[in-house]
């Protein structure tokens, strides 16, 4: 342990209103901490920059999952274990249930929250590709009120997001209109558990009479933040899936992807594997098989 517990203040106001008051009173001063699976790693290594932390753990207003007629809402404080145990998510958002099962280990899933995964803003975030493929919206809240934006507009740069200094991520909202979509999610990492993605790809699609009529593709670790692959999508929508379409979609993806070399993989490997994942999805779409 190279960090110094005495160098950091942490408070637990216990309710959402008190947290928002604190954030408003000193914008940018307080760093929210939920399950700590990210910030406590930095703390132990002695590189936690935040000197004042406000705890979100145990705030009931943040920890919920509700399934309604039109959508599922997930509180930012819901853990990935909460997600895995939720029948609505298993039934309606299987890609998200699958992504939740990949996160770290059981001990990480019992502490790591959806909100933490998104606000932390890792390009490799496990829940992000599925949320993007399902057209998620995020709800941000402050004493000024709340607002909803598409999750695809939340990340604005490497570890940067659209939140104002006095705002907190309140919830993620998912529409329930993907029942008849074909779907795909695959993560490539060093091992099955505990591995951070080298690359991950998610997709939802409708194929009518062999033609792609609707498609969302989203990736982790292909850009400074998890993002949709709009150019690759555009190269596929309205097309029938044949070997020429697949080849040209691979080429578009190779130019659209902007991965980097880092400790976990290389840009070249990430691009090639991403193209292979895309091809796997397209071949599944071409076949008659049931959704994965």
């Amino acid at each position: 342990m190279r960090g110094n517990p005495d160098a950091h203040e942490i408070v637990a106001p216990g309710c959402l209103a008190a947290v928002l008051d604190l954030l408003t009173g000193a914008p940018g001063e307080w760093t929210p901490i939920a399950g700590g699976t990210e910030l406590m790693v930095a703390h132990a290594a002695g590189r936690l920059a935040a000197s004042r932390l406000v705890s979100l753990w145990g705030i009931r207003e943040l920890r919920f999952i509700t399934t309604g007629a039109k959508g599922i809402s997930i509180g930012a404080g819901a853990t990935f274990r909460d997600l895995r145990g939720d029948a609505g998510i298993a039934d309606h958002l299987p890609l998200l249930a699958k992504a939740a099962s990949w996160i770290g280990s059981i001990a990480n899933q019992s502490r790591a929250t959806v909100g933490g995964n998104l606000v932390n803003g890792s390009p490799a975030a496990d829940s992000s590709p599925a949320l993007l493929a399902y057209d998620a919206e995020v709800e941000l809240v402050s004493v000024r009120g709340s607002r909803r934006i598409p999750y695809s507009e939340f990340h604005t740069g490497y570890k940067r997001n659209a939140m104002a200094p006095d705002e907190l991520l309140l919830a993620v909202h998912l529409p329930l209109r993907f029942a008849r979509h074909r779907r795909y999610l695959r993560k490539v990492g060093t091992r099955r558990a505990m591995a951070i993605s080298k690359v991950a790809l998610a997709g939802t699609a409708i194929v009518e009479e062999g033609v792609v009529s609707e498609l969302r593709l989203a990736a982790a670790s292909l850009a400074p933040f998890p993002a949709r692959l709009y150019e690759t999508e555009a190269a596929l929508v309205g097309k029938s899936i044949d070997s020429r379409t697949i080849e040209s979609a691979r080429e578009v993806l190779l130019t659209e992807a902007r991965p980097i070399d880092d400790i976990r993989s290389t840009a070249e490997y990430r691009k090639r594997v991403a193209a292979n994942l895309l091809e796997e999805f397209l071949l599944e779409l071409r076949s008659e098989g049931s959704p994965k």
Partner: protein
Amino acid sequence: MSGSQCTLRFTVNGENCAVQVPPMKRLLDVLREDLHLTGTKEGCGEGECGSCSVRMDGELVNSCLVPVLHAEGANIQTVDGLAASGTLHPLQQAFLKYGGAQCGICTPGMLMAATQLLSINPHPTMAEIREGLAGNLCRCTGFIRIFESVIAAAHNPSADQGAHAR
């Protein structure tokens, strides 16, 4: 920029505890240094290896990633409390009998992860055991003897009989 000491109360292995500590101190360090419960080990210190696994309010957690503030009011179980009144827990007996422990660093975490698994799934399949223990790294056993120990404890709580069921 200073974290003043605060008094926190929680239960560890059924006993009420009160500690006077900085609230950003890791639960792992409070257990070992303030409560002198040294069964819980530090491996990587970053949530990757599972050696510091304890149960907090019925959930498995890496105690190296828990600021002790989050333990306030919690019910914590550590490996130190597994052997009730001097009798080894069936999992401990099975680990001994079937070679689930070698150097011993991962063992406390393995036992707690296995305890967690069996508490929600008393008769897990091999795949479920592999998933339940996936966050716990062992560099000695090759894992198989650990998995077999868990199977033995699950199949026969007194762990008297042969394992190698799967």
